[in-house]
């Protein structure tokens, strides 16, 4: 992961990967500043796993595709490096094994911040629940429990009253703008 990219120490990243039953998986990555205003947005075109991938990755396919492929590509495209990356997709936690950026998965109740057309994919994730932040349950990669400490200690400076699920609503709408076919008729 490149470390030469800029960061103003308050840039936050929000990354989601959603599944469309026909089109495949699509990811969106939004970088915002301390005012929650957008700085960068990156999204993927829909990705469909091949038959061989489905058979050979078996139950780890989603983690592989969402975390190691889609999320990794999106993060690599960003010019700014976020201080912390929030996701609502448990599968994205697998990215943490390949990235230095702390990652927290904000667990959402079904339907909150999600979309009927683009639901969150199921994942055999490797997350462990560690605590609550701004009223939401936080899960981190079990091999990187220090991510929780990192975020918790900086919560006042970074998050203030930010609703951690709200940016995902924006990303899902942006995905639907970018891929109109993903919107239900």
């Amino acid at each position, binding site marked *: 992961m490149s470390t030469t990219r800029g960061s103003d120490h308050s840039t936050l990243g929000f990354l989601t990967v959603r599944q469309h039953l026909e089109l495949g998986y699509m990811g969106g990555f*939004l970088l*915002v*500043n*301390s*005012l*929650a*205003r*957008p*700085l*960068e*947005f*990156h*999204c*993927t*075109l829909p*990705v469909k*796993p*091949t038959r*061989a*991938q489905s058979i*050979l990755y078996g139950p780890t396919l989603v983690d592989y*595709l969402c975390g190691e*492929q*889609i999320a990794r*590509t*999106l993060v690599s*495209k960003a*010019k700014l490096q976020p201080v912390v990356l929030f996701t609502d997709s448990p599968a994205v936690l697998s990215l943490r094994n390949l990235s230095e950026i702390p990652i927290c998965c904000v667990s959402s109740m079904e339907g909150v911040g999600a979309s009927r057309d683009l639901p969150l994919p199921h994942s055999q994730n490797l997350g462990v629940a560690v605590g609550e932040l701004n009223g939401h349950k936080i899960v981190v990669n079990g091999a990187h429990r220090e991510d929780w400490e990192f975020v918790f200690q900086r919560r006042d400076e970074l998050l*203030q*009253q*930010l*609703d951690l699920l*709200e*940016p995902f609503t*924006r*990303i899902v*709408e*942006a995905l639907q*703008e*970018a891929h109109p076919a993903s919107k239900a008729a």
Partner: protein
Amino acid sequence: MDMLASILGGSAGFQADGNLPQEIGFADLPFRASWNIEGFATGWQSQIGRDIKIETSVFQAEKVDVSSIAIKIPQPKIHTLSFDFPESPQWQLAAQAKPQASGSAGAVPSSPVSNAPRSNVANSITRIRPPKDLVKLEDRLYYVLQPPLETLVSNAKLDFAFQPFPYQFEGIAFLFSRETAILADEMGLGKTMQAITTVRMLLLANQLRTVLLVCPKPLVTNWVREFRLWAPEIPVAVIEGDSAKRQWMWNQPGLPVRIANYELLMRDRELLQGNLHFDLVILDEAQRIKNRNSTTSEIARGISRGRSWALTGTPIENTPEDLVSIFEFLQPGHLRDGMSLKQMGQATRDHILRRTKDKVLTEMPPKLFRDAELELTSEQLATYKAAEEEGVIQLSDMGQELTIQHVFELVLRLKQICNFDPVTGASCKLERLEADLEEVAASGQKAIVFSQWVQAIDRISDVLERYNPLRYHGRIPSEKRDSVLQEFKQNPKRHVLLMSYGAGSVGLNLQFCRYVFLFDRWWNPAVEDQAINRAHRLGAAGSVTVTRMLVAGTIEERIHKVLEEKRELFNALFAEAGTPPSLGLNQADIFGLFNLKTPKAKKIA
């Protein structure tokens, strides 16, 4: 054995003599084995317990090359789209700025403000949506990816002097993303505040640098005051003074907001059609350009600009063509004359935002109408009858030379008699008004009295001297008008403000008054509504009582009836089509007042 045979398949099997083969091979396996087995003991041999003799020998398996096939799992190709949104540093500066003290003396909002606890309002989420006709994906995403307005306001510490209502946030979100828009909220819902706050946010976001606001002259000071209240950090310049000064002001760089009045546009026409460019031009009371052939409309359309907004509570005052004219400023060609109401409604749906008080302000104080049906005094009655009879006879005798102007003059003469007898000054209305005002003054309340004529206002003023009336009409110099309003508001001994419809029907905020008297009636109910809503606004201490004076059996009653029918039609059609039909009296209506035949159709305002 059967099992073994089955496993060995076709390459093994019992011989016909019952002995197993002495050597077997597997076609698919790389070894061969042989053995020697004598036949099974049968008969007497088995009885003596003789073992079966089995001899085995093992052969070395043949060496076989194991070949494998590598199946490559291709990495999925991930194609991405990327968008940058460079942030304006102004947002951070605003976050550091000190907001004006809330609710400070003199900072009374003219726009309605919410009394709801901040936490309740903060819980609402207002998202900015891209307009439907915005095509470029990057532009659409810019709006889709903006945080909710409430988050933006809270994080940037854009404190408001008073907490806006959720519907006002909706209005701001609507304007924020639109290059062409009409904010057509009913009077009193805070169009001014919504426009100013949106301008403030767009300036902070570096989406705008120069804004020109055009409004009627009497409202200039109101706009300046409102900018100070809702966007204290934004410098505002009023274009005024002699030609040289105005030219300097028009060309002065670094002025984010300029305010000019409509009359001034005429005088500075050449300058405006020169090299001046504005990122946004806002027309307040945009019905002023409803006649697209007027010079004002022509000049407004000629101003070089990026965005165009129109603010008006009455986008259609008389006919749907009024709206076509406003759109000629916003987006020429978008509407055409002759479009059906339905077509017009569809074409304008994404460009017009209109809310009414009954829909959005459930906590609005009630507005109580009281029609005071009066009888003319004997002096008035005699004069009225003579004037009407004589007038109708004259009109009938005119034959083909009869024009609407002739009829109109008679209507005006009769209306004036309903106000005052021209000879004796007797007035049934004034008698009633005096009586009502006694109660108003005794309870420490204040009232506004509207009339169409300055002469009538002067007469009323003389009679109501004991209530210390103030006058506000077209003949009061504009620089003195603000002080009149301040005096009325602050001096508890001033119980009555006498206003003309022309000067006092728009933009003023007199929500501390609980009584409104319409001494005579205007031609168009939209104008009457504007007048009433000076007092009936949020922030009013309680209900507002509107007394509409009406002399029975006269021209006033006939006009009232026609207007009420039109209002009903408006309500029915506006709900269905989203655009109202004609509201005012047209030529046929006026001729109909005296049962005269209409010559050629020509509408009046």
